[in-house]
């Protein structure tokens, strides 16, 4: 039962353009969401989070948008840089655990 879904396994974006990574969830009880970034052969690292009482959170080039009625969130990266090439995981806490999506691999093209 996938409660956190990332339906795009991969995404390619030109350097300098905007990258938009999407995430859908099924559990309306989720009240907090996190995005993690993962490079090959490394562990995931925390990137940005958002509480369900907000619809937007911004940190530098990274902005997360939350649409509760659609049970959808998205991570925007602008401008995209080569170092942004990684796998991005959407995650939501539930019962002292974190439920992770399957990840989206972002390729930034030169």
């Amino acid at each position: 039962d996938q409660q956190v879904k990332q339906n795009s396994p991969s995404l390619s974006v030109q350097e300098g353009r905007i990258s938009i990574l999407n995430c859908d969830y099924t559990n309306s009880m989720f009240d907090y969401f996190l995005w993690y970034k993962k490079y090959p052969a490394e562990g995931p690292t925390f990137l940005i989070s958002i509480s369900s009482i907000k619809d937007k959170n911004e940190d530098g080039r990274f902005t997360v948008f939350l649409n509760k009625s659609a049970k959808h969130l998205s991570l925007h990266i602008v401008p995209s840089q080569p170092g942004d090439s990684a796998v991005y995981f959407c995650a939501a806490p539930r019962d002292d655990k974190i439920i992770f999506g399957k990840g989206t691999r972002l390729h930034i093209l030169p």
Partner: protein
Amino acid sequence: DTAVSQTPKYLVTQMGNDKSIKCEQNLGHDTMYWYKQDSKKFLKIMFSYNNKELIINETVPNRFSPKSPDKAHLNLHINSLELGDSAVYFCASSPGVYSNQPQHFGDGTRLSIL
């Protein structure tokens, strides 16, 4: 000065063997976790310990036994390894049990069963 370190990074062994993976964190966190990332790339929680006490055991076979000698260490021992145990295992830590606190991950141990 790695925050969460796990050893070994790679582990290749035969079916039926017993192996251990070690994890240490120097962040002063109270809570530590073990995750499994399988071939389908899902990251799934296996265990969670808070101050050396088990708080989450996510229906993992009892061949897997975590041990926390102190709050900075959480080791994972696996008995009678099976082919399906091949995966990347990640250790993580967080300040406390509240799961909206970002977790810090180790770099993973890739376990391959021959």
